[in-house]
């Protein structure tokens, strides 16, 4: 049963991953990528990591839906009604990636991987939580700071309106001059 599931999910992950660069419709491309992620989430669940599998589903669905919106905003041919290719150096990229795969595969098959040490804890989620709040606290804090920095940096990059546009040159305007109103009466 697990073997069958593994093969189905693995093949799905690769096929959908491949479709990402084969389909014409940008919307379909986005959801092909999502399908590839969902297959990988299934594999993670299969390995007994219930929490991480569910989190991958959660994150990737949200991320891909948001991505679809940006795709359609910026891409030239979102529905793929006119087949068109937007590649550069296709042959070279193919050679490099096939080469990478061959090297990686050779390494994977030739290296003598260490045997299994230890057994999975009864609840890997608890173990993860204790690690993140204990030994790996530094990792967690770094991630938090990085995420916060990302929020600030992306907003600054993406918007073209600063506080002077919103509140006037002396920042004294009583109400911000926004194109769309908000819900808390500022």
């Amino acid at each position, binding site marked *: 049963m697990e073997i069958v599931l593994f093969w189905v999910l693995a093949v799905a992950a690769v096929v959908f991953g491949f479709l990402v660069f084969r389909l014409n419709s940008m919307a379909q491309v986005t959801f092909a990528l999502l399908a590839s*992620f969902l297959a990988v989430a299934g594999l993670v669940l299969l390995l007994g990591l219930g929490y991480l599998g569910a989190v991958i589903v959660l994150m990737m669905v949200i991320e891909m839906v948001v991505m679809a919106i940006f795709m359609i905003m910026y891409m030239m041919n979102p529905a793929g009604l006119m087949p068109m290719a937007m590649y550069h150096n296709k042959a070279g*990229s193919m050679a490099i990636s096939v080469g990478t795969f061959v090297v990686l595969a050779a390494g994977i098959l030739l290296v003598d991987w260490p045997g299994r040490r230890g057994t999975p804890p009864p609840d890997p989620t608890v173990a993860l939580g204790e690690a993140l709040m204990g030994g790996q606290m530094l990792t967690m804090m770094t991630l938090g700071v990085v995420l916060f920095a990302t929020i600030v940096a992306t907003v600054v990059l993406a918007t*073209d309106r600063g506080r002077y546009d919103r509140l006037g040159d002396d920042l004294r305007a009583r109400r911000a001059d926004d194109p769309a109103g908000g819900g808390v009466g500022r």
Partner: protein
Amino acid sequence: MTLELFLLLAAGLFAIGLYGALSQQSIVMLMMGLELMLNGVIVAAAAFWYFVAPGGTDGQVLVVVVITAMAVEMAVGFAVVTALYRARQVDMTDDAADLKG
């Protein structure tokens, strides 16, 4: 299910992603390639956790880190595309490489 199979899958996803990241002109598609590469890393990390050191938590933490990296990559990528597009109306790497739009 063996470690080698999982790692081969991870290598396959990584290679497909690499191909996309190298060959696509559109910045958005390029980011999809990067995401696929990270997808491969998730598979590898989870497999190492299960088949090599299930007693530890390093594999799991690595998955968490990769997921965060994906989110950050997407957010920053789209912010840059938005800024580029606002300034020069381009969403292609080749055009962004020109010094003046």
